[in-house]
């Protein structure tokens, strides 16, 4: 461990090492629209860490938004940090350089608070690397008053129990208002002379309440150390109880209610280095009520809140001016579902006609796609690939997962795309869904064949292609499938092998269909970390100590390292990897995240799980009556959708 408390920039010591590492540009900071404020003069200093490679972390909207929201506060500094690759990590250890922020290269230990955004659980080992490199004790219990507070956010924070020992706090839901509330608490605590030290601050944070609406259940800050977990003899959780009066029994998620009041990022970061998304993104709505039962994002971000067409127009204009990107991504969980998406797409295509500015919808539902929309998107010269996600191969399994798309819809949509000039379509499916059999997955081959056959018929051409991409299903907390048994990796691999053989066997179509899938092993570990409890923390630490880094990357992930660490660390509790992954839970079981409130009514989730098994579908509450998922009454929220009926006005020149 490297001991340092200096707040000086480490750049002078870092610079001589940079010629010796891959892609040094990712460590230098200074991106267009980045901010460097007076570090020493600030009252509250945030380090915002994305625990993955720079090229993945930089485009992350969550970090970008909070970076701006915080830096707009005069006495607050927010700087960004990303995971360092093992080549630099080794050199930093050799030269005793602590983990740093990329903006002014301050040691992470010099900040008051480190906010870590977990889009996926596979970033947990990278958190430990960062803490250790920064000289911050891995275990929150061993940190002193001078160490930063480590706060987890992002979707994985909806069950932070596996990393409970390593974090001081977790925040569920939208971060914009939550980080400001936490900042206010830290500012006051420091101004008061740090009463009761670190413990005093944590108790104050546990009392934070940010209601989305007056009188509704407030969003809070979860401080794991203020809760005790008791276990039954068979290993299941008996109860989770607060051990401090400051800690509420349940901690609620935060919900931002008017997106038009929060037009962030206003000045999107533009990296010098290449990143995974080379475009300017605008979030056109938050939340999704389609009700796909596997989808954690759709469940935990309810209700739907649309940004208005004018708000979208303002953000696109300001963002393009500030960045110079040549592509705009209209982001959301299902972008074609925006109530005025046609008007938005047409308005933007008109506005940017002749400027070589591309438009893209990163996620489009089969039933919301239409050719007019697609043509607007490709009007300005570019025709990007089309991706649809039927998720399940058979109609039956699509009823189970509540992805209400018929095979006829799918064929019609894809055929229309081929007829309108697209030559390549990508279809995304999952394998290992609850109640799934070989037949459900083999139906994917049939769907792909029908797509190609219909495409050849309408185009009269043989060069059309379809790529089938298959991911392993991982049951997630706060979804109807949170009780489900995960399919083990042997069965997943066997099923995928059968599918591959079925597609290859039909020589009329084999060459036109590409198949992409990964083996089932990483999904099992993601499953362990998703639905794990505090006892899984020892597994994470053991894996990290054995060299585990960058688990989201194939070339770094080692299933054997995880399996062996799990076997060793879970044995004293009489548990194993299967217990956390392939075991189906019963209704009465206390789940590790039951004290964390996503607003979803657990009884509704259970009823929806039973409906899934019975292959009963449920509608979208935007277009049908409320089906009582529980979010709106609990959180005091309601769906906010258009149409506004207003046009996107052209920009005035001059």
């Amino acid at each position, binding site marked *: 461990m490297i001991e340092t408390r200096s707040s000086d920039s480490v750049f002078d010591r870092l610079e001589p090492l940079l010629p010796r590492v891959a892609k040094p540009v990712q460590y230098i900071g200074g991106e267009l629209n980045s901010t460097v404020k007076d570090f020493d003069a600030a009252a509250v200093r945030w380090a915002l860490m994305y625990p993955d490679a720079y090229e993945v972390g930089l485009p992350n909207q969550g970090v970008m938004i909070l970076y701006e929201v915080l830096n707009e506060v005069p006495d607050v500094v927010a700087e960004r940090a990303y995971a360092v690759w093992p080549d630099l990590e080794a050199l930093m250890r050799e030269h005793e350089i602590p983990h740093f922020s990329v903006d002014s290269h301050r040691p992470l230990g010099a900040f008051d608070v480190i906010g870590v955004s977990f889009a996926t659980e596979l970033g947990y080992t990278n958190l430990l690397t960062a803490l250790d490199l920064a000289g911050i004790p891995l275990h929150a219990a061993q940190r002193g008053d001078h160490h930063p507070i480590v706060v987890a956010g992002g979707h994985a924070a909806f069950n932070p129990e596996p990393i409970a020992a390593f974090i001081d706090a977790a925040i569920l839901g939208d971060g914009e208002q939550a980080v400001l509330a936490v900042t206010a608490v830290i500012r006051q605590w420091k101004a008061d002379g740090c009463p009761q030290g670190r413990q005093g601050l944590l108790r104050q944070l546990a009392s934070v309440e940010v209601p989305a609406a007056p009188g509704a259940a407030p969003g809070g800050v979860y401080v794991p150390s203020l809760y005790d977990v008791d276990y039954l003899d068979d290993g299941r959780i008996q109860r989770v109880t607060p051990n401090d009066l400051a800690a509420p029994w349940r901690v609620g998620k935060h919900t931002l209610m008017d997106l038009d009041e929060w037009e962030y990022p206003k000045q999107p970061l533009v990296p*010098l280095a*290449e990143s995974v998304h080379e475009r300017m993104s605008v979030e056109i709505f938050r939340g999704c009520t389609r009700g796909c039962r596997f989808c954690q994002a759709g469940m935990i971000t309810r209700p739907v809140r649309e940004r208005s067409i004018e708000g979208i127009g303002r953000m696109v204009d300001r963002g393009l001016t500030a960045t*110079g990107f040549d592509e705009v991504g209209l982001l959301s969980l299902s972008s074609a579902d925006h109530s005025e998406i046609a008007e938005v797409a047409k308005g933007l295509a008109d506005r940017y006609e002749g400027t070589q500015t591309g438009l893209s919808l990163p996620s489009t539902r089969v039933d919301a796609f239409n050719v007019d929309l697609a043509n607007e998107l490709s009007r300005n010269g570019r025709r990007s690939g089309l991706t649809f996600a039927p998720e399940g191969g058979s109609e039956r399994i699509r009823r189970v997962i509540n992805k209400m798309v018929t095979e006829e819809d799918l064929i019609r949509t894809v055929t229309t795309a081929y007829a309108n000039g697209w030559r390549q379509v990508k279809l995304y499916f999952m394998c290992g869904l609850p109640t799934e059999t070989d037949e459900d997955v083999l139906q994917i081959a049939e769907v792909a064949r029908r797509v190609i056959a219909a495409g050849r018929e309408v185009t009269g051409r043989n060069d059309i292609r379809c790529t089938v991409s298959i991911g392993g299903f991982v049951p997630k907390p706060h979804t109807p499938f949170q009780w489900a048994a995960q399919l083990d990796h042997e069965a997943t691999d066997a099923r995928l092998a059968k599918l591959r053989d079925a597609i290859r066997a039909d020589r009329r179509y084999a060459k036109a269909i590409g198949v992409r899938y990964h083996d089932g092993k990483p999904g099992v570990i993601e499953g362990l970390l998703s639905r794990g409890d505090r006892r899984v923390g020892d597994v994470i630490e053991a894996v990290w100590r054995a060299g585990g880094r960058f688990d989201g990357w194939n070339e770094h992930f080692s299933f054997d390292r995880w399996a062996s660490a799990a076997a060793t660390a879970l044995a004293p509790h009489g548990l194993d990897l299967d217990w956390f992954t392939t075991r189906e839970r019963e209704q009465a079981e206390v789940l590790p995240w039951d004290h964390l409130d996503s607003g979803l009514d657990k009884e509704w989730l259970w009823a929806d799980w039973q409906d899934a098994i019975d292959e009963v579908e449920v509608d979208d509450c935007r277009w049908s009556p409320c089906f009582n998922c529980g979010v709106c009454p609990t959180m005091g929220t309601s769906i906010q959708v258009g149409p506004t009926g207003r046009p996107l006005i052209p920009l005035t020149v001059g």
Partner: protein
Amino acid sequence: MGARTPRTPPGDVAPVAQRVRLRFTKRGRLRFTSHRDIQRALERAIRRSGLPIAYSAGFTPHPKVSWAGAVPTGAASECEYVEIGLAERRDPEWVRTELDAALPDGIDVVAASDDTAVSLSDALVASRWQVRCEGLDRADMAAAVTALLAVDRLAVRRMTKSGERDVEVRDSILALSVGQSEGTLDIVVATAVPVVRPDDVMSALVGLGMPSPAVPPIATRLTFGSWDGEQVTPLF
């Protein structure tokens, strides 16, 4: 199988009305950018600045930008050149000011010209480099320099993505001396294929007995242009 009917590219593409050449720098921490990073940064700066850039024809139109002999990642430069095609005529100095404002500090656009009589590749035949080798003894450097200048040919081994390859160094060295300021080398290399980089010259010198610098040397291209046997004169 149906007949292949080619799709016509959308819209008309405005022809190039004027070519403007720019000289720019790669200073400070920006030396860690790769050539691709610089390409992206310039294309985005062009869009932000609102210059009337011309685009290539086709389904994926590209802005008209031509590059010449970029320095490697990790090397700094006071003298890089790029040529852009504009769809409408502009005062080169105005183009320089606009682009300089839109580019990050460190990539500074320092001169502009619309004289394109000689092609960039014909005009940029030699580079003068300063290599700062902290902690190296002047006499050690001078001895290796003399040894290198005394041979007719010398190849060094370079690691590339496709493995090791030998690069002939001596042929391309037009001038070499220990620099005026402490711990520096002054190198003039001809623009050649494969290009000889300052670190290739450093490898050659280390092979001839110069100690390896304790910290990685920092190379800066000072000028890029013509060679009269005495000095390198920048194109503009």
